């Protein structure tokens, strides 16, 4: 028995020692860090709001504005900032040369026809170079950093070709770039209404299914057929009537609409009555039947000016 015990003890010591050595050599997993891709989620409703444009809206430079959100994430590198600053300065400096150059040319041409071709290739060659350089810069400039642009318009007007360059450094586009953080992204045009000002048809429980913008517009259009605004309502600023509407599955009203908000404005009473009348007159409404849960009970925000526009 003693022999067995000693052998067993020795074997266990050996095995444990080997295990300790072996576990020491366990290497940790090599993890390759993954590059995070910034992704903006845009719901369909936001998209419809975004793309709904007005004809009267002024058209901006489209390529610059939509790029801005990506560029902000991409590279706020401090190093390339100084580079774009000095470049525009030599450009205009080189550019004015061709303007005075053609003026003396005809005078020389009258006197001596032969040397005339010689200076001509120079101005031809020079305009080509700045054009060639300017094109890529238009694309690169916003990528580097939107911030230095604020300072650039000041040095540029000094030079002769400042007007051309101002297209490039349009303060409106700078404002568009800077404002991006507060406002939702716009695709060039002006949205019809600010997002929070639209009459929203919210389900009381805030259910996941919602009416899409086109359906809301359709309902608004249906109501606005019967909407005859009383005098003075249109001039009231910030007047919004909230109507509590309950609808049957066939689109008819279950009960007369209830005014859900109050206001001390005397016009409010008139406006609310007119709105309720319009809602009663225009029933039944045709709405998607599969979303009945959403529109069977809803609060309609009734903005008189918008209803007229719609």
């Amino acid at each position, binding site marked *: 028995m003693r022999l*067995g015990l000693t052998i067993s003890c020795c074997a*266990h010591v050996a095995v444990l020692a080997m295990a300790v050595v072996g576990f020491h050599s366990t290497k940790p997993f090599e993890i390759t860090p993954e590059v995070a891709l910034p992704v903006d989620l845009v719901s369909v409703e936001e998209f419809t709001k975004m793309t709904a444009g007005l004809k009267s809206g002024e058209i901006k430079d489209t390529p610059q504005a939509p790029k801005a959100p990506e560029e902000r994430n991409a590279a706020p590198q401090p190093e390339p900032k100084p580079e774009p600053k000095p470049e525009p300065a030599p450009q205009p400096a080189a550019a004015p040369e061709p303007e005075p150059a053609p003026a003396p040319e005809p005078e020389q041409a009258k006197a001596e026809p032969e040397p005339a071709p010689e200076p001509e290739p120079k101005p031809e060659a020079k305009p080509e170079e700045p054009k060639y350089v300017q094109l890529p810069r238009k694309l690169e400039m916003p990528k580097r950093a939107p911030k230095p642009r604020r300072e650039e318009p000041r040095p540029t007007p000094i030079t002769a070709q400042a007007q051309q360059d101002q297209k490039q450094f349009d303060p409106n586009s700078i404002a568009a770039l800077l404002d991006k953080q507060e406002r939702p992204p716009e695709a060039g045009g002006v949205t019809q209404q600010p997002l929070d000002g639209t009459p929203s048809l919210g389900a009381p429980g805030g259910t996941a299914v919602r009416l899409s913008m086109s359906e809301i517009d359709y309902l608004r259009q249906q109501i606005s057929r019967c909407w005859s605004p009383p005098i003075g309502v249109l001039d009231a600023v910030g007047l919004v009537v909230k109507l509590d509407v309950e609808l049957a599955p066939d689109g008819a009203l279950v009960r007369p609409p209830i005014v859900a908000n109050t206001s001390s404005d005397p016009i409010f009473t008139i406006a609310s009555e007119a709105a309720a009348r319009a809602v009663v007159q225009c029933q039944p409404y045709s709405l998607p039947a599969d979303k009945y849960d959403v529109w069977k009970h809803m609060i309609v925000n009734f903005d008189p000016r918008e209803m007229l526009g719609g």
Partner: protein
Amino acid sequence: MESLIDQSGLSAPTGDLSLITLFLHAHIVVKIVMLGLILASVWSWAIIIDRGLVYARSRQQMNRFEKVFWSGHSLEDLYRTLSARPATSMAAMFVAAMREWKRSQEKPSGSFMGLQMRIEKVMDVTVSREIERLERRLMFLASVGSTAPFVGLFGTVWGIMTSFQAIAASENTSLAVVAPGIAEALFATALGLLAAIPATVAYNRFSSEVSRQAARLEGFADEFSAILSRQLDERM
């Protein structure tokens, strides 16, 4: 246990998940479980080695004795040589039976049936004593084989319990926080299985060995009692 403590004293824990750090960081209950399992493993391996040697030796002795017994030598001579030194297994049976035979010859009582019964009784007692000797400590292997996994599991459950409490206390659920506790808890199960597997295998093998040797002993006892009864009949 000594070896483990020695090692833990010798090599400072460098890696986070080395066995020593796993052991040292474990809860006291888990430590006790681990130490108990290591002791059980050491003891069961000692038994395995010891029993293996015992069975091999007794098998050899049986073979040798049978060769001598069936070689045609005089049983008196064989008895004289074997009774001089302590014998085991078949030799012990033979010596016991022959001693009883001699005693009854010295004082003839006349009842041959009584002599036959006495010899068989003596040989039965010797067989059971031999089997008891062969089976000694096998029960430890059996109990280690059946309980060590549960003991290890108990250590694991306890360790995971405490590590979850630690997670709750640190309010951090990253894998780096969870992993060491679970690793040290699983270490207990590993030790339990490490002790249980050889014990179970050895117990199965040894119990079949014991039953085979017992059958061999009983067969020899029957044969020898048949020989002796033939001798008695011839003497009548």
